């Protein structure tokens, strides 16, 4: 018996149908579970286990290997500041400190009201637009410490329901790795990637 609503179960069946073997669907199903609970819960992992026919312990073994499966309560907005080499060379550490200072949330932690989580991350492939920050994995390139503070204030006051990369780039970004060219209207709604097969993309097309 699945604890997921019928529409989410349909989504799970669609995901599984994309692979020759059920077990390959573990990773997308883990994201699906996160989208239901806000982070990866024990119940979510049990649910995934029953869909692919392995034990919850096996699912946990997989989930614990990857950094994007958040097994602790995570804020509605996950702010990830890159401090890998190329971002560090151009002030990524200062951007991280600005995010921590403005939000009062040290990296690796979540605000008391459960709204905001802060982490520093290794290279997110935005080195030409360093330093870079992601919110719910939606990218902003060319961020300064001041812009990072504005971003934190915007998240806590505007409380956007959909996190849109182009909107954030316009408001808080600077130099980009390359011309993004085409604007998207959709975005992310939680601390997990916004991707159509997962049903995690929202906003108007």
């Amino acid at each position, binding site marked *: 018996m699945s604890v997921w609503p019928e529409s989410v179960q349909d989504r799970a069946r669609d995901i599984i149908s994309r692979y020759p073997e059920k077990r390959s669907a573990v990773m997308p199903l883990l994201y699906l579970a996160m989208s239901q609970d806000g982070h990866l819960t024990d119940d979510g992992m049990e649910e995934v286990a029953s869909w692919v026919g392995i034990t919850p312990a096996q699912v946990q073994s997989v989930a614990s290997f990857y950094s994007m499966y958040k097994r602790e309560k995570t804020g509605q907005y996950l702010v990830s500041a890159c401090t890998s*080499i*190329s971002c560090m060379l151009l002030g990524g*550490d200062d951007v991280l400190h600005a995010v921590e200072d403005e939000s009062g949330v040290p990296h690796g932690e979540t605000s008391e009201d459960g709204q905001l989580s802060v982490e520093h991350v290794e290279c997110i492939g935005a080195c030409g637009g360093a330093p870079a920050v992601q919110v719910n994995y939606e990218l902003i390139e060319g961020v300064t410490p001041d812009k990072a503070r504005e971003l934190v204030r915007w998240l806590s006051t505007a409380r956007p329901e959909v996190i849109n990369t182009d909107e954030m780039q316009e408001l808080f970004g600077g130099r980009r*790795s390359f011309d993004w060219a085409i604007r998207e209207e959709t975005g992310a709604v939680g601390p997990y990637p916004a*991707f159509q097969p997962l049903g995690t993309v929202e906003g108007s097309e």
Partner: protein
Amino acid sequence: MTTPLVVTRRMTEHPNDSHTLDRYQATGGYSQAKRSLGMSRDELVEEVKASGLLGRGGAAFSAGLKWSFLAPARPAYLVVNGDESEPGTFKDRQLLERDPHQMIEGIIITAIANEVHHAFVYIRGEYPKPARRVQAAVDEAYAAGFLGEGIFGSDYDLELTVHLGGGAYICGEETALINSLEGQRGEPRLKPPYFPAAKGLYMKPTIVNNVETVSNIPHILSMGTDEYTGLSDSADTGTFMMSLSGHVNRPGNYELPHGITWRQLIYEVGGGIRDDKELKAWIPGGASAPWFVPSEHLDLEITKDATAAAGSMLGSGAVIVMDEDTCMVKAAERLVRFFAHESCGQCTPCREGTTWLEMILRRIEEGQGRAVDLDLLVDVSDGISIGLSWPPKMTTICPLGPSAVSPILALKDHFRDEVDDHVTHGGCPFSAADKADSAESSDPDDSGGST
């Protein structure tokens, strides 16, 4: 210099719609995929072999040769590696976002050449936008009958699944990628078998090719091998995407012919060093590559062999430039921290060694270094990669651990004085100015981060 654009041509000439099926077809797209349906496996493999195309994921192995190794058992699978995570690298992100149909056509041709009926694109989890673009293009291709049952009206079936990673650099290693795609922990597999072409996904013969590699395939067919090999004056054929970052005036992705020099790349293409500072060092091929310095390497040609002869590699094409104000200890610490964070933990030399390297580098940077610490770093490195030779000797299942040694070699061979300065001054000589106003803040450690 004139640059014959190949894989970035469409996005350069048609920036507003290079990702759409309409634009792709209006510029000749999918004609080679259709044509390849009438070609034999041998013809296609020979054509790609003759083109000299080298894998663009980092190992620079002949793509055609890789295809020729595919074992005869069927089903066979194709996995396109878009898990781009090597620090400094962002070329595949551009190819995925800006020209997804080019990759999909390359996938169709590669599938036909290798008798594959189910292909996968593995895109790193931190690339949701590229993944959305690729999925939208895949949906367009299915609707047009270029994917699915009976592609292009033939009796050839081809399924294509877009898979999102979970935030683990190690999944860029092809056997770890395969484990991950099977729904396992992304740990590299013990060799042999050396190539997934023998036993890969679900223990079936599998081709793993990088996004840029596959994106070149339609062009090799449309240009023919003579024109394609003629794009370069050097031994390495075709063009090469380089991701330029760090202290240059014009960072970005550049599609370049092989054989220009590092001086041309940094000073002409990249516009020189920011604020007219002096160049101190650069990393020629991603975080794993041993560093180059201006006194020895500026006029070397950018080719696979010239770079290898000088003791480094072109790797994923990521060039990270550091100016005279850069603290080499801090740069080394940041690179080593990456490998320590991304070690999958299977092999002791990597798991323990990278952690110790990171801790020793941090204490030097923070002013608690000792005179023997550089020797200690070299000693620990020797435990990860015995003899510290190039290419590195392996004590581990995969090259991740030995990659962490590259920054240590740079300190040992070129910046020994700088390490000594840290020890004698009891701190970083480069951060005296900003230490005063950020006394509270410490460098982020490796806890709680993700890839």
